[in-house]
């Protein structure tokens, strides 16, 4: 950097977009050594980072001084400072990754190593990382701004307007980045069909799309507070572990998991809204390859709630317990008819899991009402599918419920729910054995 200090003085007289081309000794001239160019770029990056930190520190000191002794305001300033520092460092890391990917590494003899900058590496390593970092960043900001907006009802219109503007900007950034990421997954699928012999749609789904989408959701979840992340992680693990084999089951599973995620993350004030969000998210996540029939089923559920949405803001909707119950059961019933027609055991398993996950979500958020809703869904779904699956369905559902609930059992709600499940499950020897095993686990 020292080498080009004089040039920086000339910079002020030059239009910014001409800087690199008008200097006589342009540091970025192709005549220069690549390693020198890289060092110059890194140095300039460091200067920019340091300037940002300086500006941040000055602002922090200035506002701290004006604010006076108010503890709450100081805490808020500390939070902003810490988040900004994180953002600056994150930009620095992204920049470093970009530079490392562009300039080839040099070996001990000064030779340029082959393939340091080939397009494949750029695509495989750099692009997803960058997009994911943008997604994570935007998602964290959206969450933060939404919370700020909720607390902002009594604040001045100017603050609200700014927050809304940032929220909109970040939502747009998130949407664009997610589209770019999904397009990238699509490109990989196309490439794999061209380059890998024996590639099938199912393999592409399992090897590229599902892991890719999981990474995407994990990055978003990692931007959330630790407790929320843990619950969300559980849902994601469930998606991966219980990966359904059919489109119908896949959609229903994702919708179910997303319902739980919405509940667990408290992004939905009522179960009805959670179901609505679950359907919407489930569909958007698998919509690209979901069958038309299933898409319609989910769509109907969305429309049903969307009608109410027109009447008042979605967050103010307070569905009655009957509404919610009907809604979930309708979804399951419609899904069940599809499942029945296909008589696919794997789909039935996933159907059982949706109900049990809802019940577990109830336990997790300490709501007996939600937990009972899951159990009711479980029962009505069981009745719908009983002829197809028989007792194996119930056994499986009970097993799943126990497996999930032993991790989240926290209080009296859990005890009450478990008592109910045990009552429902203990109808034959297999179920009794499960109950006994479960009791041992908790004794």
């Amino acid at each position, binding site marked *: 950097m020292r080498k080009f200090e004089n040039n920086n003085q000339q910079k002020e007289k030059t239009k910014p977009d001409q800087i690199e081309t008008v200097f006589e000794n342009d540091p970025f001239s192709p005549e220069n050594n690549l390693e020198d160019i890289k060092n110059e770029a890194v140095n300039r990056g460091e200067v920019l980072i340091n300037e940002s930190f300086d500006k941040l520190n000055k602002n922090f000191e200035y506002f701290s001084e004006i604010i006076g002794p108010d503890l709450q305001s100081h805490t808020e300033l500390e939070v902003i400072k810490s988040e900004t520092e994180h953002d*600056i460092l994150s930009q620095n890391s992204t920049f470093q990754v970009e530079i490392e990917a562009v300039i080839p590494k040099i070996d001990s003899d000064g030779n340029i190593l082959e393939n340091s900058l080939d397009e494949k590496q750029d695509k495989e390593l750099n692009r997803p990382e960058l997009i994911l970092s943008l997604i994570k960043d935007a998602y964290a900001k959206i969450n933060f701004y939404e919370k700020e907006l909720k607390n902002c009802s009594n*604040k*001045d219109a*100017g603050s609200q307007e700014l927050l809304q503007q940032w929220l909109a900007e970040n939502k747009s950034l998130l949407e664009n980045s997610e589209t770019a990421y999904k397009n990238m997954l699509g490109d990989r699928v196309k490439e794999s069909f061209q380059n890998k012999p024996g590639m099938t749609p199912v393999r592409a789904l399992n090897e590229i799309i599902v892991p890719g989408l999981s990474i995407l959701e994990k990055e978003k979840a990692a931007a959330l507070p630790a407790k929320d992340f843990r619950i969300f992680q559980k849902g994601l693990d469930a998606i991966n572990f219980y990966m359904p084999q059919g489109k119908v089951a896949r959609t229903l599973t994702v919708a179910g998991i997303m319902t739980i995620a919405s509940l667990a993350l408290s992004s939905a004030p009522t179960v009805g809204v959670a179901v609505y969000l679950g359907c919407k998210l489930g569909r958007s996540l698998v919509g690209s390859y979901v069958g038309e029939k299933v898409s319609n089923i989910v769509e109907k559920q969305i429309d049903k709630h969307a009608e109410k949405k027109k009447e008042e803001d979605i967050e103010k909707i307070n569905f009655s317990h009957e509404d919610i119950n009907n809604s979930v059961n309708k979804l399951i019933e419609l899904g069940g008819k599809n499942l029945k027609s296909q008589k696919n055991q794997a789909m039935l398993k996933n159907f059982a899991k949706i109900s049990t996950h809802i019940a577990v979500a109830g336990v997790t958020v300490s709501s007996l009402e939600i937990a009972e809703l899951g159990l009711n869904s479980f029962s009505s779904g069981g009745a719908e599918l009983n002829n197809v699956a028989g007792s194996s369905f119930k056994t499986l559902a009970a097993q799943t419920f126990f497996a999930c609930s032993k991790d989240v059992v926290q209080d009296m709600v859990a005890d009450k729910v478990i008592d109910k499940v045990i009552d429902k499950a203990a109808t034959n020897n297999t179920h009794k054995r499960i109950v006994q095993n479960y009791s041992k686990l908790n004794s």
Partner: protein
Amino acid sequence: MTMAIRKKEEKILKIKESLSKLKLFLNDITNNSEKRMMIVLKNNEKKKTLEILEELKKM
């Protein structure tokens, strides 16, 4: 222009783009941070005003 020079120029262009992007994002980050701090300040001032009003009412 040889292939090697063209490739080198492409790399240099990418580096310049990265630097411009870094500058742009950092500006955005620090400006947003400043705006957020101003919101804190405004709320703080409002709070102070309300406290003064309360005091006045008591008087």
